[in-house]
């Protein structure tokens, strides 16, 4: 009965469909951005964007042209700078596949993070699955320009090495956008960002020779964690402090630690499981935090004469490792206190355990943070010894002695 009308409407739908394709963008009209660098500039911001050249990555005939290109502009705001980029880029920049955003150190120290972050969190094109980092002692622009071997797209290299080093080595941390924002806004936590820097000859980084040599002259490193207070960068944690930070924030998936033997030499262990529990307590009005680190490890390398078949010796090693973890953790906390920045989220812990007291501490938490009492309990269990039991090093040593 009303079939006619329905069909008419369907035709109308199709007509409308045929007249406009407002939001469509052909793939060949897009410049897929993989990394974004934000630096301070006298005009406001300097924006550097790394765009990949798909034909060089997956095309059928690869040439020796670079796989990525970078463009830089300046602008009063980031949004403005990004749009101004269209005057020099051949295509519209597409940000949804961004892997990493790098901030220049200068910008972080002087300007702060907040203004840059708003655009990043507001723009619909940007997702949340990219990581953020700081260019340590250099501008983000220089860092973005470095070509990397193996991983064709440099941003991919940085992203994946951030991930693998977080998973296997521990002194770095992949910081995603929402985590960063929530630690920036939370009164009981301060933000951190991993630092990146170039070693070798940075000036050769953006030449194709950088990837043509076996040993690239310019390499990207990542092993420091930048500490924020408010939204400004106040300092850096070194490798061992970064590791301590990751122990406290329960961010250790797998790492390697070593202790010295009784004699000369070292034993390395692979920590394959680590859990940290933070408990807060208000003890007579002063905040108190207990850090329980429970780790399991296996022996990875024995470079000294030791009989690891001996349980007592194993317990000794365990105790040494525990002590070392405690040292690392305490070192990290001391550094944080030095910067007066609660990067571990102790305030958040107290908010959860002592919500009432927290309300009183919240106002001047940075002072309270200095007085915070911290107890570290490390518990290390060695579960396995690898594929061999006793090391052959002992035998070699004995042989040496005999030969002498």
């Amino acid at each position, binding site marked *: 009965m009303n079939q006619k009308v329905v069909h008419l409407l369907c035709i109308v739908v199709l007509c409308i469909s045929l007249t406009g394709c407002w939001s469509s963008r052909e793939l060949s009209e897009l410049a897929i951005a993989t990394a974004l660098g934000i630096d301070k500039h006298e005009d406001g911001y300097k924006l550097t964007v790394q765009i990949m050249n798909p034909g060089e990555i997956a095309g059928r005939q690869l040439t020796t042209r670079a796989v990525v290109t970078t463009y830089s502009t300046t602008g009063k705001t980031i949004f403005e700078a990004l749009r101004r980029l269209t005057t020099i880029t051949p295509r519209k920049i597409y940000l949804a596949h961004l892997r990493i955003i790098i901030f220049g150190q200068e910008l972080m120290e002087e300007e702060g993070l907040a203004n840059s972050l708003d655009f990043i969190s507001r723009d*619909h094109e940007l997702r*949340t699955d990219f990581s953020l980092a700081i260019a340590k002692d250099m501008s983000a622009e220089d860092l973005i320009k470095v070509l990397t071997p193996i991983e064709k797209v440099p941003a991919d290299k940085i992203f994946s090495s951030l991930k693998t080093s977080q998973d296997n080595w521990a002194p770095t941390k992949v910081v995603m956008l929402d985590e960063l924002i929530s630690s920036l806004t939370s009164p009981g936590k301060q933000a951190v960002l991993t630092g990146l820097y170039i070693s070798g000859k940075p000036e050769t980084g953006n030449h194709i020779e950088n990837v043509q040599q076996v040993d690239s002259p310019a390499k990207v490193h990542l092993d420091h964690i930048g500490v924020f207070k408010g939204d400004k960068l106040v300092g850096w944690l070194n490798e061992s402090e970064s590791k301590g930070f990751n122990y406290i924030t329960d961010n250790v998936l797998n790492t390697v630690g070593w202790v010295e033997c009784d004699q000369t030499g070292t034993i390395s262990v692979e920590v394959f499981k680590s859990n940290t529990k933070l408990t807060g307590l208000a003890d007579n009005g002063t905040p108190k935090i207990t850090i329980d680190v429970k780790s399991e490890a296996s022996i990875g390398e024995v470079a000294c004469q030791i009989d690891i078949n001996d349980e007592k010796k194993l317990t000794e090693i365990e105790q040494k490792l525990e002590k070392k973890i405690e040292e690392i953790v305490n070192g990290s906390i001391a550094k944080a206190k030095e910067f007066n920045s609660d990067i571990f989220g102790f305030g958040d812990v107290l908010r*959860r355990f002592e919500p009432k007291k927290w309300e009183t501490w919240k106002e001047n938490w940075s002072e309270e943070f200095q007085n915070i009492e911290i107890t570290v309990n490390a518990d290390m269990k060695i579960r396995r010894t690898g594929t061999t039991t006793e090391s052959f090093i002992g035998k070699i040593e004995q042989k040496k002695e005999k030969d002498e």
Partner: protein
Amino acid sequence: MSEKVRISGAQFAILVIMNVLGTAIIIVPSIAASFGQQNGWFSVLLATLFGIGLVFLYYLIDNNHPNKNLYEQLEDLFGKWIGKFLSVLFIVFFFEIAIGNLRVMGDFIITQILVNTPIEVIMLLAVITCLIAVRMGIEVISRTAEIFFPYTVIAIILLITLVLPESEITHIQPVLQNNIAATLAGVIPLLGYPFLELVVMLAIMKHVNKQKAGRGFLVGMTIGGLLLTVVTLMCLVVLGSDITARNVYPTYVLGKKISVADFLDRIEILVAIIWFFTIFFKITISFYVVAIGVSHTLNLKNYKTTTIPLAYVIMVFGFFASPNIISTRIFLSSTWIPVSLIFGLVIPIVMLVVGFVKKKI
């Protein structure tokens, strides 16, 4: 006039669920978190309990007048002219639900999915689809809902399970320790949106088998409310209260968090598009109810007469409903509360009381 068709209890329950979720699923977590912070999920839970209470009220009303829809009941209870006047008010209320949801849907699509497309076109397409659905009748609507329901539920369950690894229970701790007053206050806007809007179901309840209507309503309301609660809870647990409150569409951000083995990620649009089903049915039901209301009030022979003009009006009023997304949020937590209380609670209670009194006499 309304049709003489039957819909099954299960179909009715599905329609109720679709109406509870509707657009609410994309913005309720934000509203809840902006009040109760980490306890926002509790506000939604309380509102759900209230909603379940509402079911009994509506069930009693319907039970007094089986086989009569809302407009017929109003005329029965209050006489022809007062009844018609109240019907008109209800029609305006349902009309507002239709255009409000249309607008929220349009805003959502152009903010997140089709950025450069004019909102008029998005809304026009949705209205045309709704129009076709409304003209096909409540039977076809409820059957279509039946077809799409599994996908909606699977999408929500997938969302919940896939973001589970990202969740951190610390985000909602301490549980119910502070912010209690704000948590309770947060229930109030949630009552109006979406639970009191469920009064719309009174207008189609007569098509449902009398015994099954109440059960369907109850089941639908419970499942819908619980899904809303769980989605809010997941938003809070995964994103934290701050980001949940800050985002306009936190559930969509939650969808962005889906990542299974670095392979099954970036599927939030798919999830969002599937929620579109719930929104579609919410708009369609309100549209349908407005259409039968108008034709009942004017004593028309066929409700389809009014559908095409109404489609024009809904489209344009939807476009002008609110100047921007912020005003929609303000509207939902201010004006909409008394309005929905009047139509969803006060008038139904009066109807119930008058019904009882009349029966006694």
